C-alpha cells in the first residue's frame, strides 16, 4: 500500500516536473532606466502582460539612469549575456543602431508592422536611413513651454508667448512683477536639437547623420548664434534663469515660483501637477518669427526599446508578442495617463481623445499636437555618434557663453571643432 502510494507520488511528481519543463513560459529579460514612479508603472505593465497570457513571462529590471542602462547592456552583450529587450535613450541611438548585428529591427520582429500607424513625430527617430524602424519608441516626450498662470495675471499678461518675439515683449513685465521670465532644463535638447526641427534647419550633414557616420555637425550657423546671443542678453537682463545643468534644479525654480515660464518635457506634466502649488498651463515650444512664419513640429526625446540579437526564434516570438501588447491602444493610453509620455500610435491617441481625457486635462494633449504638427525636411531627428560626449561639449560651451568667458562666435566655433573631432572618431570606429 505504502509502496504503491509512494510510486504513485513519484509518477505524479515526475509528470508535473516534465509538464512544467515542456510548458514552461518563455522568459523575457527587459532592462530599463525608469526609476521612481515611472519604474512602478513599468512593473505594473509587465505584471499585467504576464497575467494576460501564460506563454511569456516578462521580467523588468531597473538598471539605473539612461547611460547606466546602456553601459550595462553593452557589457552584457560583450559577455554574451544580453537581455532580450533594452531601453536605449535618444543620444545613444547612434551607438546601438550603428552596431550592425547588435539588435533585431522592430519592423522585422513585429507581425503586421506598419510605420504609418505611429504618430508622425515618433516614426523615424529610431529608424535607419531607409526609414525602417529599428527601436520601438517607448517613453516619448517632446519639449514644451510651461507657464505660471498666476504670475501671468500679476504681470497683466493673458496668453503665453507663441514666438520668441512675443516673449521678448513679455519678459520685462514679468520682471516687474518679480519673476525671472524663463528657465529651461536641457539646452542641447531644447535650444539646439529641437530648435533646428522647429525652424526646419539641417543640423548635420549626411541627412542629419541618418545616411552615414562620416558627417559634420552644423550647429555653428547664424540662426543658432542669433538665438544664443539673445539668450545671453536675456540672462544679463534678468529675463532668463540658469540653475545649472541638472534637470530638476531648473524645474524647481519654476515650482518655487522664481521663474514664470519653464521649458521642460511633455513628460514633466504628471510631476508638475503634483508639485506645483499654482495654476499652470502648457503650450507649444516658441519659435522665431524672423526665421520661419509657420513653425514645424518637434521630434521626440526619451528612449526606445530595442530587441537585442543572439536569442532563439521562440524568444523573439515572445518579444514580438510583448511589443504588440505594449503598442495596443489600451496600454498606450494607460502609459500616457500615468506618466505623461505621449501615446505613440494614432489609434491610441484617438482612443485617449474619445475617452474625453483631453477635455478634462487639455494640457496633456499639447505634446502630441506638437509632434503631429506638419513635418519638414529636418524634423525627423538626428543620428550622431558619441552624441553623449557632444552634448557635454555643447553644455560646456553654453556655460562659457553664459559666464561671458567666451563670445557666442568663439563658443560655437569651438563646439563645431570639438564635435566634429568626436564624430570623426566615431566614424573611424566602423571601418
Amino acid at each position, binding site marked *: 500500500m505504502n509502496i504503491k502510494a509512494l510510486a504513485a507520488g513519484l509518477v505524479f511528481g515526475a509528470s508535473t516536473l516534465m509538464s512544467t519543463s515542456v510548458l514552461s513560459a518563455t522568459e523575457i529579460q527587459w532592462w530599463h532606466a525608469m526609476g521612481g514612479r515611472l519604474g512602478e508603472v513599468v512593473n505594473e505593465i509587465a505584471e499585467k502582460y504576464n497575467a494576460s497570457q501564460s506563454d511569456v513571462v516578462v521580467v523588468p529590471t531597473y538598471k539605473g539612469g539612461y547611460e547606466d542602462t546602456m*553601459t550595462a547592456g553593452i557589457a552584457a*552583450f560583450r559577455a554574451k549575456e544580453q537581455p532580450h529587450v533594452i531601453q536605449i535613450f535618444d543620444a545613444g541611438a547612434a551607438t546601438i543602431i550603428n*552596431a550592425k548585428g547588435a539588435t533585431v529591427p522592430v519592423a522585422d520582429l513585429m507581425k503586421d508592422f506598419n510605420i504609418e500607424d505611429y504618430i508622425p513625430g515618433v516614426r523615424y527617430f529610431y529608424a535607419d536611413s531607409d526609414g525602417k524602424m529599428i527601436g520601438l519608441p517607448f517613453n516619448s516626450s517632446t519639449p514644451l513651454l510651461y507657464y505660471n498662470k498666476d504670475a501671468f495675471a500679476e504681470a497683466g499678461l493673458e496668453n503665453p508667448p507663441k514666438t520668441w518675439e512675443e516673449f521678448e515683449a513679455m519678459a520685462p513685465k514679468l520682471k516687474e512683477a518679480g519673476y525671472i521670465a524663463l528657465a529651461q532644463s536641457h539646452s542641447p535638447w531644447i535650444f539646439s536639437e529641437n530648435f533646428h526641427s522647429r525652424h526646419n534647419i539641417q543640423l548635420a550633414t549626411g541627412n542629419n547623420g541618418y545616411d552615414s557616420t562620416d558627417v559634420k555637425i552644423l550647429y555653428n550657423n547664424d540662426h543658432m548664434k542669433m538665438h544664443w546671443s539673445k539668450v545671453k542678453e536675456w540672462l544679463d537682463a534678468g529675463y532668463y534663469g540658469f*540653475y545649472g*545643468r541638472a534637470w530638476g534644479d531648473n524645474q524647481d525654480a519654476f515650482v*518655487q515660483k522664481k521663474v514664470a515660464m519653464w521649458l521642460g518635457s511633455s513628460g514633466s506634466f504628471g510631476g508638475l501637477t503634483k508639485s506645483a502649488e499654482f495654476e499652470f498651463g502648457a503650450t507649444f515650444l516658441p519659435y522665431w518669427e524672423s526665421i520661419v512664419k509657420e513653425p514645424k513640429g518637434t521630434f521626440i526625446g526619451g528612449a526606445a526599446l530595442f530587441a537585442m540579437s543572439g536569442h532563439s526564434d521562440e524568444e523573439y516570438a515572445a518579444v514580438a508578442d510583448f511589443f504588440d501588447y505594449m503598442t495596443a491602444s489600451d496600454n498606450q493610453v494607460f502609459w500616457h495617463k500615468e506618466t505623461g509620455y505621449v501615446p505613440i500610435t494614432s489609434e491610441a491617441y484617438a482612443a485617449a481623445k474619445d475617452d474625453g481625457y483631453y477635455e478634462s486635462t487639455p494640457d496633456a494633449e499639447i505634446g502630441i499636437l506638437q509632434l503631429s504638427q506638419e513635418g519638414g525636411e529636418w524634423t525627423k531627428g538626428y543620428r550622431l555618434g558619441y552624441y553623449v560626449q557632444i552634448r557635454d561639449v555643447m553644455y*560646456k560651451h553654453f*556655460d562659457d557663453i553664459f559666464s561671458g568667458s567666451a563670445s557666442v562666435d568663439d563658443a560655437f566655433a569651438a563646439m563645431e571643432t570639438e564635435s566634429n573631432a568626436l564624430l570623426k572618431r566615431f566614424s573611424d570606429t566602423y571601418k
Partner: protein
Amino acid sequence: MKRVQFEHSTIPYLFVAPQIAIIVIFFLWPAAQAIYQSFLLEDAFGLSTQFVWFRNYQDTIFSPSWLQAAGFTAIFATLVTFLSLGFALLLAVKANEVIRGASTYKTTLMWAYAIAPPVAGLMGNLMFNPLIGDLYKFFNVIGWDFNHKLDSFDAGFVVVLISVWKQVSVNFIFFLSGLQSIPNSVNEASMMDCRSPTRRFWTITFPLLAPTTFFLMVINITYAFFETFGIIDTTTRGAPGGATNTLVFKVFQDGFRGADLGGSSAQSVVLMILVLALTVIQFRFIERKVHY
C-alpha cells in the same frame, strides 16, 4: 666552489599566494586590459575592432577638454593635499593641547571620517543649492557674488571645500596619534631650551612628525586624484564649462557614459603613469628628507 643553499619548503609561497592572486586578478590583469584596449578603436558592442597604435592617445590627450581637466586636476590635487594636511595638523596640535574635554574634541573632529565621498558631495550640493542652499545664501549675503553654476572659481571653491572637509578628519587621526607618540621627555627637554612654542613646533615636533606627514601626503594625493570622483559626480559634474572636470571623472564620462572604450582606456593608462611617476618622485626626492 659549492654554492650554499638553504633548504626551504614551499609553505611560504602558499602563504603569500592569496595576496599575489589578489594583486594579479584585481590590479595587474585589469591594468593589462586597459593598456591593450587603449591601442584599439572599437565600437561599444565589440563588433568591429581595429588596432590603431597611439591614435586614442593622440585623439583624447591633445583634446582641449583633456588638457583643461589635467590643468584643473593639478591645481585641485595640490590645494586639496596642502589644505587638508594643513588644517588637520593645526587641529591636531590644538586638540593635543586640550586637557579638559579632550575626548569630546577628538570625537567631533573625527566623525566626518565615516562619511563616504558621494554622501559628502550630496550634502555639499544641498548646502550650495541656488534655491535652498544655506551656504549659497550666506556667501551672497556677505557680499560675495557667489554662483558656482556659472563661475569657475566658485565651482572650484565648492569642490575643494567639500574634498578638504571630508579629508581633514582622516589626517587629523593620523597627526594626533603621531603627536601622541612623541615622547614627553623630548617635549619637556625642548621646553627648557626654547621658550617660543612656534619655534619648538617647527624644530622639534614637525621633524618628528615627518614620517606621518609623508605617508599622509602620498595618501592625500591619491585621494585628490581618485577618491574625489564621488564628490565631483554628486556636485558639479565638471561644470561650468569643464572647469571642475578631473582626469578620473573624464575617464568615467567618456568610457561609461559615452561608450568610447579606447579613448577612455588611453586616458586611464596616462593617469596610471602620472600617478606612478608622482609616487616615484615622492619616494625618491621627498622621502630622503624624512627621518624615521
